[in-house]
């Protein structure tokens, strides 16, 4: 059996009539905990949830125990007597497998193995989801920082160019050489603004994202709250 070394199986069996079957699990290196009473089972589930549970459907409060296990995403394998169809019908949708007496030890081992593997896959999937979410969050943060930096750069360049455009004398001074230089300077400023705009577009940066207009609205809110 391939499972993590600390794999734990809870067996809820009021009769204690299947020691050979459960012994086979121990032989496979699985830590087995047996609860004879429903209260003990519920306490174990709460205190230290197992990886997989086997439950004899003759147990009182079967449904409550199965609910407690499934709410923690723990696979439940039912051990049933041939006449337990009514009980099985109540919890069928929540069971990973139903093993009917006489239960072979190998069948239990295989069912537990499959559930442990599924549990391991679920854990891996959850870990990967967490990792992906972390990466997405980091990417969003980086995009925000990048957008803010480019936005600030664009602002500062435009503000600096504004000093140039403000300092330029108006046209019509009568000096044709000076007029040419003024026109060239104005064109250079316009070109710098165009280059800036194109660079921001290429970086898919807008000062305000239409779907998320943060800065301006935030500034207004700040002042309004004064």
């Amino acid at each position, binding site marked *: 059996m391939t499972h993590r070394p600390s794999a734990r199986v809870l067996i809820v069996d009021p009769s204690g009539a299947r020691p050979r079957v459960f012994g086979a699990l121990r032989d496979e290196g699985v830590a087995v905990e047996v609860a004879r009473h429903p209260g003990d089972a519920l306490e174990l589930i709460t205190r230290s949830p197992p990886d997989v549970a086997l439950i004899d459907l003759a147990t009182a409060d079967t449904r409550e125990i199965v609910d407690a296990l499934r709410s923690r995403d723990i696979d439940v394998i039912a051990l049933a007597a041939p006449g337990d169809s009514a009980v099985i019908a109540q919890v069928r949708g929540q069971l990973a497998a139903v093993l009917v007496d006489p239960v072979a030890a190998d069948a239990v081992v295989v069912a537990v193995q499959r559930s442990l593997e599924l549990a391991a896959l679920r854990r891996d999937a959850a870990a990967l989801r967490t990792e992906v979410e972390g990466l997405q969050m980091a990417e969003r943060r980086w995009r925000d920082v990048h957008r803010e930096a480019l936005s600030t750069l664009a602002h500062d360049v435009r503000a600096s160019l504004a000093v*140039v455009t*403000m300092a330029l004398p108006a046209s019509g001074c009568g000096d044709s050489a000076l007029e040419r230089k003024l026109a060239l300077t104005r064109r250079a400023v316009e070109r710098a603004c165009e280059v800036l705009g194109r660079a921001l577009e290429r970086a898919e940066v807008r000062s305000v994202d239409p779907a998320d207009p943060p800065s301006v609205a935030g500034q*207004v809110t700040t002042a309004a709250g004064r």
Partner: protein
Amino acid sequence: MCEEQRSSAVVQRPPTVFLADDDDLFRGLLKEELVAHGYAVEDVSDGAQALELLSMSADGLSAAPDVVVLDVRMPGYSGLGVLNVMRRFAKRPPTLLLTAVSDPSIDVLARTMGALGVLHKPVDLVAVLSAIDHAALLGTTRAIERA
């Protein structure tokens, strides 16, 4: 606005412009040009100072300017933030916004909050003076109507 128009205005003093911009070079240059064109200028370099002085004038503790010019991106309060507070003033001078932020929503917000217009940097001197002249004239007209 020409000198004759200014002299015939209701207020017999140079029209005053309150200018808030954290860019020292730009502010200094604009102030110099405004003074050369007959305006009196009070200038500050951050939004908090602008808000404090404009609130004082709104409370009658100092003379109200004829025109207010606010940069959008400033330390303390943004020009839009100052404008938003100015909405509570009983009398609000014609207000222009200046910005180097390329963002059309600034124009929409500014006009919604009662600004006369938004000037986008880089802007040339003629356009700025023309907008301020227009704002001063509007303020004078309102004063005549009130009188």
